[in-house]
């Protein structure tokens, strides 16, 4: 046997103590990148949830007098990140911005995931003409660069918050569809699926009960990475002015658009939302990578 097989055969014991999920979890726990990512994402989520309790000020409350003289008062004891061009507390706006990013990310990814899973599993399981048609459709959608596609959708639907969520969600559909199709194809030929067929399990059940639970791991990984890109995409669309039209919305991308005139005098107004975007995206990427490693079946049994 090859040395790799020897390693995993001779080292692995008869009855590993824990389950598959356990093993993945313990590997995840020992991955420093994944832990860092988890900390970042957890912070992000907690901030998003508890923003009203944490934020010192109302993000819409304006202190016009303070910026009357010119922009903008920098970080101070009362306002940790200073005030923005309309006198609003930047720190609070960043905290509230997390809510928008989280919500948008979740909605966009869930949309993409649910549609993508259905299309991908149907294409992979049934094959034939259905498979070809669905996949060619996905190819067409993928041929258009993500951001352009999102812009196109927004152009059709008009600008606004839920419109960009839908747009970003749709750009994710072909990615998930392709991924799941590949995974389903691989699982379809496994012996335990054949066994289920030979027993007489109806096809519907085979797909849902046998194949999908085993095919889902790459999708989980992709899901976390998709959150990361969704945040960037939404920020990008917001930056282009296609996002929430209410200028008061503390969405990070929109915040970036509004401060281009003040970059020289008040750079922290751009750095703050920029850094928030970077850190949250980094967090999701790190978790995604960690999950990918933890769930990789080839690494099972090795140390």
């Amino acid at each position, binding site marked *: *046997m*090859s040395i*790799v*097989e*020897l*390693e995993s055969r*001779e*080292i692995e014991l008869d009855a590993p103590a824990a389950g598959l999920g356990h093993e993945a979890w313990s590997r995840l726990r020992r991955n420093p990148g994944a832990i860092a990512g988890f900390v970042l994402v957890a912070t992000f989520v907690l901030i998003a949830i508890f923003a009203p309790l944490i934020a010192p000020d109302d993000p819409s409350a304006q202190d016009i007098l303070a910026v009357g003289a010119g922009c903008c008062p920098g970080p101070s004891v009362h306002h940790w990140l200073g005030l923005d061009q309309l006198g609003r507390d930047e720190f609070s706006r960043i905290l509230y911005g997390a809510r928008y990013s989280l919500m948008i990310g979740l909605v966009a990814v869930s949309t993409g995931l649910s549609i993508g899973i259905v299309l991908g599993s149907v294409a992979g399981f049934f094959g034939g003409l259905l498979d070809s048609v669905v996949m060619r459709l996905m190819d067409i959608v993928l041929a258009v660069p993500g951001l352009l596609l999102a812009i196109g959708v927004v152009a059709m639907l008009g600008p606004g918050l839920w419109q960009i969520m839908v747009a970003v969600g749709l750009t994710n559909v072909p990615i998930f569809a392709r991924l799941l199709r590949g995974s389903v194809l691989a699982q379809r030929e496994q012996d335990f699926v054949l066994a289920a067929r030979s027993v007489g399990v109806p096809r519907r059940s085979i797909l849902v009960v046998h194949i999908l639970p085993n095919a889902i791991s790459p999708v989980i990984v992709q899901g976390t990475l998709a959150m990361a890109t969704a945040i960037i995409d939404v920020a990008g669309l917001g930056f282009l002015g296609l996002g929430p039209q209410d200028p008061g919305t503390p969405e990070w991308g929109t915040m970036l658009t509004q401060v281009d005139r003040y970059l020289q005098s008040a750079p922290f107004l751009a750095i703050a939302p920029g850094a928030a975007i970077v850190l949250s995206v980094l967090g999701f990427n790190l978790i995604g990578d960690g999950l990918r490693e933890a769930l990789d079946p080839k690494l099972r049994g090795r140390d």
Partner: protein
Amino acid sequence: MAVTEPLLAVDDLWVEFWTRRGTIHAVNGISFTLAPGETLGIVGESGCGKSVTSLALLGILPRAGRVVRGGATFQGRKLIGLSDAELRRVRGKEIAMIFQDPMTSLNPVLTIGRQIRETLEAHFGMERHAANARAAELLDQVGIPGARSRLGDYPHQFSGGMRQRAMIAMALACEPKVLIADEPTTALDVTIQAQILELLRQLVAERDTALILITHDLGVVAGMCERVNVMYAGMFVETGSAAALFARPRHPYTVGLLQSVPRLDSERGRKLQPITGAPRDMLSAPSACPFAPRCRYAIDGCTHEVPALRTMEPDHDARCINPVPAATPQPAGEATR
């Protein structure tokens, strides 16, 4: 046979693997010698440590493995514990190895010719043209038709049997004194297996190469090897000449193996006698006979300490304090008609 210095001598070798779940004691004190031109079979089931032994000899244990005790000498010189540079001179040139799955043991992105040339260039300093010619010659000797033209082919263009022949060609390219074959035919169909084994037999006889054949198949060992060592739980439980061992197996494990395998030439209708239980887990070094829990002949003393190898008859030892009596009927072949 004249008394010659053994080519390879392994002395009380112990190999461990460190894993998250504990230390695996893969090899627990094996010793054997190999004379020039001799064929030795090491037979045992998966997990018994037979493959690990050969990897330890060549210094190619996986990262987590190490030799913790004992050593080996080759032509009188120390073998285990050599530096990487010194080992590289030994590997391929003096001791060569072929593996079970030629698909993963051959580099899929290099042509066969290139891989053979590599060995020749590394060990003999041959230049390209001469190495090519020699490689073609070798492929021819292992029975690959159209050898010259196949030098430029990639491993995936060969069938399983052909790939194994190419591996043998590579291994014998530098005329090693010892060839270690680790389950060389397990992945092959039985008729191809017969071809490959016959090829091996011829080649090692022609070149007087010593052969260590590692396998789980008792039939293969019976046909190929002069001497046999049966391995269980990291130690040899029975050793000796093939003739004596197969005719009068004494260790209960060997007897169990022979009785649990259906034989093509035996009476039908005889029930198989499986060995009950499962192999021992290797997380601890054995403190008693490792086979005792599964042994039908176990007596009280078996759980006290690991038995030493005792002589049963000339050139036949068994590690057992209550061996199977020599006269026990074995599943012999039917009388020829």
